[in-house]
């Protein structure tokens, strides 16, 4: 376990910066998810922490001592790769014990630690096998086992579940959460999948274009997104956004605060919208739906507002509205999110 602090971190390839002046504090035993679209710099950040990339500015500290000068293996971090990166010609046992063997640990101790890690992950019966004999989920477990054996201060995960199918992914999410509780280690988890981040992390750090857009608990980033990017990125289906300059009636619904806060965009999540009856001239928000996706009880309604913008509504009452007709939509004023002209969340939140 370690407290990881990243100060003023900069990384560029030649003249192309990946990120600059990045600050991030990760507490002892925290499970933190670095979330962002591809190319946002999250993997590079992880690789900088691991020591696989040289940083160009700033500092990374574990418990107050800088590690940037240390080679990867001396940093006390273990990494789980997206492609598992198991050594194909070695057995599971040798894969997991490789680091200890290099560190010249006595064989009995290697065996003991490998077996202890295998027990945690329920892979004892796989120890004599080679990676090619294992399924994707088993390989992933072995890769995690290889990390556990080293007893690292920090676990680094680079999109470890993205090669698994949906069902296995869901299962491994639960297992990783359980593992985190069991071994109580600091974990840094890179993903582009918001479900993984939301379900497992104590805290989510959302990166976009090399900048930290928001850092907070899953509930915080969902309830109070810091800007329009986060608002759209977190939550599925994505939040509906309406420019108040064109949807002036919506400002009226929210009340005077929208204007006083300088709000220019109003956001509302698809499941906060309620479909009413036929639209009337006084309806503040009118939409016409063309496609209805049924997910059992939940229905996703896709259509256009009366001003021609795309809109998505999610209902949970199992009733599908009529398509092709103008319908009135309503919402509670307290459920909207307001963003200023720079796309940042209006102070004191969105809601009254």
């Amino acid at each position: 376990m370690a407290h990881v602090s990243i100060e003023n971190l900069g990384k560029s390839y030649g003249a192309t910066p990946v990120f600059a002046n990045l600050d991030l504090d990760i507490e002892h035993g925290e499970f933190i998810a670095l979330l962002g679209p591809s190319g946002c710099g999250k993997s590079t950040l992880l690789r900088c922490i691991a020591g696989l990339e040289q940083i160009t500015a700033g500092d990374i500290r574990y418990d107050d001592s800088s590690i940037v000068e240390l080679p990867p293996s001396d940093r006390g971090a273990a990494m789980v790769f997206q492609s598992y990166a198991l050594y194909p010609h070695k057995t599971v046992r040798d894969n997991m014990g490789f680091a200890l063997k290099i560190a010249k640990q006595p064989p009995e101790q290697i065996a003991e630690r490998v077996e202890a890690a295998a027990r945690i992950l329920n892979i004892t019966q796989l120890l004599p096998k080679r990676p090619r004999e294992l399924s994707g989920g088993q390989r992933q477990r072995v890769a995690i086992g290889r990390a556990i054996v080293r007893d690292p201060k920090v676990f680094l995960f680079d999109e470890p579940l993205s090669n698994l199918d949906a069902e296995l992914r869901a299962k491994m999410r639960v297992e990783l959460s359980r593992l985190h509780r069991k071994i109580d280690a600091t974990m840094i988890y890179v993903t582009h999948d918001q479900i993984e981040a939301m379900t497992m992390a104590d805290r989510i750090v959302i990166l976009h274009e090399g900048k930290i857009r928001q850092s907070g608990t899953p509930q915080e980033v969902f309830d109070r997104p810091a800007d329009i990017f986060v608002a759209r990125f977190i939550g599925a289906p994505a939040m509906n956004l309406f420019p108040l300059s064109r949807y002036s009636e919506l400002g009226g619904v929210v009340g005077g605060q929208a204007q006083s806060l300088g709000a220019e965009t109003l956001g509302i999540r698809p499941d906060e919208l309620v479909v009413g009856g036929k639209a009337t001239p006084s309806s503040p928000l009118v939409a016409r739906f063309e496609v209805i996706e049924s997910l059992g009880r939940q229905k996703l309604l896709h259509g256009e507002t009366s001003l021609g913008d795309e809109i998505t509504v999610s209902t949970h009452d199992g009733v599908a509205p009529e398509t092709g007709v103008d319908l009135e939509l309503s919402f509670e004023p307290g459920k909207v999110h307001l963003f200023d002209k720079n796309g940042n969340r209006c102070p004191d939140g969105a809601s009254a």
Partner: protein
Amino acid sequence: MIPLSHAHERWILRILIAVFVFFLLAPVVWMISTSFKPPEEIFRTSPSLIPDAPTWRNYLRAFTETDILKYLGNGLIVSSLNAGLTTVLAALAAYGFAKFRFRGRKGLMLLMISAQMFPYAVLLISIYPMFQWSGLFDTRTGLVLAYLVFALPASIYILFSYMVNLPDELIEAARMDGAGEGLILRELILPLVIPGLITVFLYSFMWSWNDLLYSLTLITSEDKRTIGPGLLLTFLGEMEQDWGAAMAGSVIVSLPVVLVFSLLQRFFIQGLTAGAVK
């Protein structure tokens, strides 16, 4: 692939293949046949493929009356040294080219491959005075070095195409595990490119085993002579030609290569086509 939709097209292809195979195999068959013929049968105006009176005498003479065993030994030493050195050096260089980014990497690679473009005999013109000047002339070391010049570029390229296909994450995982570059190469890379190593070893071995020109030019002492010149100078003098013993000798020196090759050909074919289809 050429679509061979019509029967006559397939027949043309078969005939072409047959002609090709004939040109490849006829000399070999003739060599074996001749090696069993007594002298009077070899020089008959209407030769037969199957000897009328097959004899082992040529083999016996090749073993007892010549230094063929010594030449075999010399050839084996030079070829093994060349093959071993080529494999080690090619593995190191290929790892560098495949997995490290450094300034001039592409240029260096290109330069190395273009060395392959020089005709074999042309380089001898410059190697000869260099060896005379440096004292490498008429030494086994010199001969091995001369073979390296030719075996190495292609070997590096073969191993490069193997190693470049190994995922970087594998190497990074080993670095995280605390392995240094030497250990990564030894414990991780080399075991994963064994077919490539075998290919390179065989390729460079055959190169030097089959060579005549370099060995004939760069080695002058009889006791260092390898098989190519050994056979030539022993049996085919200006005055007399002992074809029977020459062919028997040829069969003897071909056998080790044929044997090794047939055992390892699976790897060899794999090796040459690696990276072609992924």
